[in-house]
């Protein structure tokens, strides 16, 4: 009996690793991934970065311009996350197991959230480029749709997790639907909700760089411009500015999380 179990386990893991290696080989072939180049490019990239990729005096002149672009990107990220959180909260309340009105509404709202979540922000950017062109609104709506899908899922899980017993208790006392939502569900979930919104802002700033490269707006555009002009010193300054901004926001939201959760 015991021997069988170990033999089966060994066989299972053997099959698992064989499958893994097979998929790896197929992936390497179809993506035209050059394994040797993969290994040699890392030291090459590091030595290149040390000799070219640092800000110099000339690039510092561009700093005010870059900071302006960064401000725009951060504001777009914040605006997209906060407005999306309002819509997401509405959808989460209708889509949650405990507070949803009926099964049909639940299915519909969850379906819409799944749709928005599974189209990536970069795909949204390319779709919206047709109508909004190279304006801030393209990036804003792309981030808004992505945030909306993600936050709806996160909020739904938060509401399901936290409030089922308190909702039941209030229902038993005869409280109205809106009283339950506004007096119990939202207040108890508020710390979770804020924590997710802060997380979304961080994610949005990172995605905003990609969206900016694709749509020609904000900090992503600034990086792309200097990068394509082979002005690596200024491009590295953009990277440093982005990293500093993200780290500040991350530390700030970690502090807020420690206090409220």
């Amino acid at each position, binding site marked *: 009996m015991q021997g069988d179990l170990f033999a089966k386990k060994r066989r299972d893991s053997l099959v698992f690793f064989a499958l*893994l290696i097979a998929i790896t080989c197929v992936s390497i072939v179809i993506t035209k991934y050059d394994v040797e180049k993969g290994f040699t490019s890392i030291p090459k990239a590091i030595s*290149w970065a040390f000799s070219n990729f640092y800000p110099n005096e000339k690039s510092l002149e561009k700093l005010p311009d870059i900071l302006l672009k960064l401000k725009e990107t951060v504001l777009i990220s914040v605006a997209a996350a906060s407005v999306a959180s309002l819509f997401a909260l509405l959808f989460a309340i209708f889509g949650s197991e405990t507070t949803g009105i009926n099964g049909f509404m639940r299915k519909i709202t969850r379906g819409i959230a799944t749709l928005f979540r599974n189209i990536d922000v970069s795909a949204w950017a390319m779709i919206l480029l047709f109508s909004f062109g190279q304006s801030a609104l393209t990036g804003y709506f792309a981030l808004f749709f992505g945030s909306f899908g993600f936050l709806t899922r996160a909020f739904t899980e938060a509401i399901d997790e936290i409030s089922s017993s308190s909702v039941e208790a209030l229902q038993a006392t005869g409280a109205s639907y809106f009283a339950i939502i506004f007096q119990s569900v939202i207040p108890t979930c508020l710390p979770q909700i804020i924590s997710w919104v802060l997380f979304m802002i961080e994610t949005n700033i990172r995605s905003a760089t990609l969206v900016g490269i694709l749509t020609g707006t904000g900090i992503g555009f600034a990086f792309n411009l200097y990068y394509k002009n082979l002005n690596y010193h200024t491009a590295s300054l953009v990277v440093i500015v982005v990293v500093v901004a993200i780290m500040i926001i991350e530390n700030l939201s970690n502090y807020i999380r420690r206090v409220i959760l």
Partner: protein
Amino acid sequence: MEMDESFKPISLEARNSMKSSHPGKMIKVKTITKETIVIQLTMIILAISTLYGFFTFDYKDIVFIESVVSALQSVKIMLFEPHLQHFTFGEAIFQVMVTLGLAFLTTLFGAVIALFLGLLAARNLSTRFVSNLIKGCVAFIRAVPTVLWVLIFSVAAGLGSVAAVIGMTFHSVGYLIKAFSEAFEELDKGVIEALRASGANWWQIVFQAVLPSCVTYLISWTFLRFEINFAVAVGMGAAAGAGGIGYDMFMASGFYFDLREVGLITYFILAFAIVLEILAGRIKRKLKSR
């Protein structure tokens, strides 16, 4: 001192609500703690910066209503009249496979590297110095957006799948080290202590106690990352020329201006992403029930 100040508003508020027309009917219970102040401040700051953002955005003479109408129209065309012009159905499937391949390679490399570094980053399995060093590096790696890693590597390796995979691996490693090391740190202290007392060395502790007890976590985190990497690979195909369905989408939207083709590609991406999400949910449930 601080207590006095924080109590005043409550008593005032309570008195006001008592005076209002229905005494006894309304009971205002509000406690002003550091927690509520921080929550309210955060919400106010977010609201103000959102409004400020809307007033200062660079709209570039876009008429809002007109653009929204045209956006809705283009969404309608995308959803209901998708077609293929520049490649065939089979090629589209192949391109999605390429994107999946990029995501798979990235996740595999990321998971292998993160497994070892995650062990070294876990507080209970490593020294404080090494753990802090790795965690600091991870914070930096995660702060640089993936696309910037890819573009930086593409200078050395050239635009293509090598730069994309290595650049994306950086971010995956950062993400997975954080997830893995937290899973390792949750391990019961007594288990490690007991093994150490019986004379087991580091490798034995890792392979006999740590990995077997965390393996479900590791697999579900890795698959979650695979799901994310698929979405990232779409974006990298577009922004860094790594190929795959993302590149086709970039061409369709930025060069051919073919809405119908963008629509079909969106359907492809959506279908695969939903399949991955369902699979991830299944794997999670299966591992949990074990």
